[in-house]
């Protein structure tokens, strides 16, 4: 149940109404950011990457976590593997 696409927030149309524009490789659509924004913690801003599903942003995509995931993959079979694993587990705590 799972078609989620990463897209970049390029405009906040109306913060109160949670309307924003997201860009996916040049395609733009208005999406609703109520699930990721609004007052308290974890607000989003223009330039952030979010996961989009049926016209809603579901979560912010963590650039650092993405990089770590890729590093882990590329480090497989490499002497640094153990370090990467430790680093990743530490980051999750």
């Amino acid at each position, binding site marked *: 149940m799972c078609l989620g696409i990463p897209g970049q927030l390029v405009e906040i149309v109306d913060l109160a109404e949670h309307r924003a524009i997201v860009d996916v490789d040049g395609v733009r659509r208005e999406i609703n950011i109520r699930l990721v924004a609004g007052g308290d913690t974890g607000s989003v801003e223009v330039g952030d990457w979010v996961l*989009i599903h049926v016209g809603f942003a579901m979560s912010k995509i963590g650039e650092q976590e993405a990089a770590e995931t890729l590093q882990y993959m590329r480090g497989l079979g490499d002497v640094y593997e153990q370090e990467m694993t430790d680093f990743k587990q530490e980051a999750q705590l």
Partner: protein
Amino acid sequence: MTDVVAGEHGGGDREEQVMQRIEEFRKRRPKLKDEFINSAHGAGGKASAALIDAVFLEAFRNKTLEGMSDGAVMELPSGERIAFSTDSFVVKPRRFPGGSIGHLAICGTVNDLSMMGARPQWISAAFVLEDGFSIVELREIVADMAEAAAEAGVMIVTGDTKVVNRGAADGCYITTAGVGVVPASVHLDSRSVKPGDKIIVSGKIGDHGVAVLIARGELNLEADIPSDTAPLNEMVEQLLEAAPGVRFLRDPTRGGVATVLNEMAKEAEVGVRIMEQAIPVRNVVNGACEILGIDPMYVANEGKLVAVVPPEEADAALAALRAHKYGADAAIIGEVTAEPPGIVVLQTGFGGTRIVDMLVGDPLPRIC
């Protein structure tokens, strides 16, 4: 090259038996079980094939029709061959970035004739107009047709107009038919395709279908994706001159490149193997397809062709296409194989393989 055996992953004999059963079942002509037409019948995939078979072929049975190409090629008493093709245009919205129903009406038929190797010359245009349709709009559509015809170098020589009640024609439906002469040296036939032949696509795919989907406005997407509607006859002539051994041409309209490849694989009883990484798609078209969950391989194109050429002429063919403005992004996407016959296999960018099957119905955007 590696030679790997089917069915290794899991079931052995029993699995192979099931696969055999399925393949035999698939080879049978698709059966028509519906009592009423639905949108799948117009999508260009299995449902369309079933309809054509069960209703039209059944009634009109003759050898030329059974050839089932984009159009028909007939021999005159003089020995010359003419090609004849027809198409109807019902697109909505009638105007979209990159073109209109008018451009499509001419280019669609011009291209069908070109795919048979003919030089398109004469076009007929029949209009079914709804009571209340704007004449200003009609003039615009007709101007587009004149523009496309001029570019293609064809003449609209005859036509017809009918008016129907309000609500009965969605504004304006156009049917065009076209005739052209096939030069004596040209023989294009899917059945002449051989293992080892290269498969070329003349440019980036998916533009038209996505442009129209976005232009309908229902999906609330915004993107700079114009339709690729264009007359290809000049490019085809240049291609045939540079690579006279071209076996087969077809334009990937409804149903997309995947459908053309599947049709060819079945008609010629050969396999097709294509490389995902080699298929040219604009980033923005890819983005739109990812959002909607549709595959660019199944999306309509109106200014592209698929060409199958002998391997020794592949470079010349590619160069000829790339030298033309409508073929600048032409690319070799794969080749014809002996096995497995009738099946189109895609090697993914990732190193895996999957089958590219015939479309079941309209490609619907998915969320899942």
